[in-house]
């Protein structure tokens, strides 16, 4: 849930309830990076505690959630510093320049028509209940170029609003639209090839 932009909460307006509203988003953010329920929970707990203690520092300009994510990032960084483990998971702070930016054209022909393009998926809802589907989904998601994956995850997995994602990633509006669109085109194609058009999907449905 977005903090009402008009509510430029000064420190004394920060209530526990207000902070707790952001817990799910913070948890998803932490989970995707730490890949551990308990660690993620701890990081969020520490974040909310720190926010509560330093609520006087909150200026309300960038939005409560952006501020909280800023604190959470520090907690996550602390964790990586404390543990000797290498960072192997998605690091939202590591902005890569994707080499393959010119991939959109492959989806469409020069006249703007689909090149190939979406076939009909048979009963996609059923897939959500199948463990094998989630392995494929994860593969497809991991196959996105890093920057694109980051933008997609912040928006669709963590659940930030588009403008918050832009703030987090430093993307312009225009770049955001292009990036999200490419991510969806790629994911869609990957799921189609690796799951929905596989013979193991019981009833194959072809509309030429």
């Amino acid at each position: 849930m977005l903090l009402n932009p008009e509510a430029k909460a000064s420190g004394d307006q920060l209530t526990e309830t207000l902070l707790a509203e952001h817990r799910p988003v913070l948890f998803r953010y932490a989970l995707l990076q730490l890949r551990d329920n308990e660690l993620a929970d701890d990081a969020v707990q520490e974040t909310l505690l720190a926010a509560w203690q330093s609520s006087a520092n909150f200026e309300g300009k960038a939005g409560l959630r952006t501020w909280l994510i800023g604190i959470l990032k520090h907690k996550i960084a602390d964790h990586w510093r404390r543990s000797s483990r290498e960072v192997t998971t998605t690091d939202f702070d590591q902005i890569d320049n994707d080499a393959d930016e010119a991939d959109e054209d492959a989806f469409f022909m020069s006249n703007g028509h689909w090149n190939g393009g979406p076939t009909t998926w048979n009963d996609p809802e059923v897939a959500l209940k199948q463990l094998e589907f989630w392995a494929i989904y994860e593969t497809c998601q991991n196959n996105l170029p890093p920057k694109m994956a980051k933008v997609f995850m912040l928006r669709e997995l963590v659940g930030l609003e588009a403008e918050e994602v832009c703030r987090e990633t430093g993307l312009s509006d225009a770049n955001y639209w292009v990036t999200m669109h490419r991510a969806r085109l790629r994911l869609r194609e990957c799921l189609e090839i690796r799951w929905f058009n596989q013979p193991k999907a019981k009833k194959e449905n072809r509309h030429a």
Partner: protein
Amino acid sequence: MRSCRDITALVSQGLDKQLSLGERLTIGVHVMMCSRCRNFQSQTQFIRKAAHRYTEQLQNRLGKNP
């Protein structure tokens, strides 16, 4: 008439912001006639749903295999 490339870009934007009535009509008319863009529309909604479920999935999986 707008191309599939343009229409899908609009469909995608529609998932992240409120489109104008004109834009929604443009999409509506196009997908009535174009099955691929219609598929794209429903499939991107499905992908959103899957993405929302993914973290739940991850949480469950991590919980079972610590």
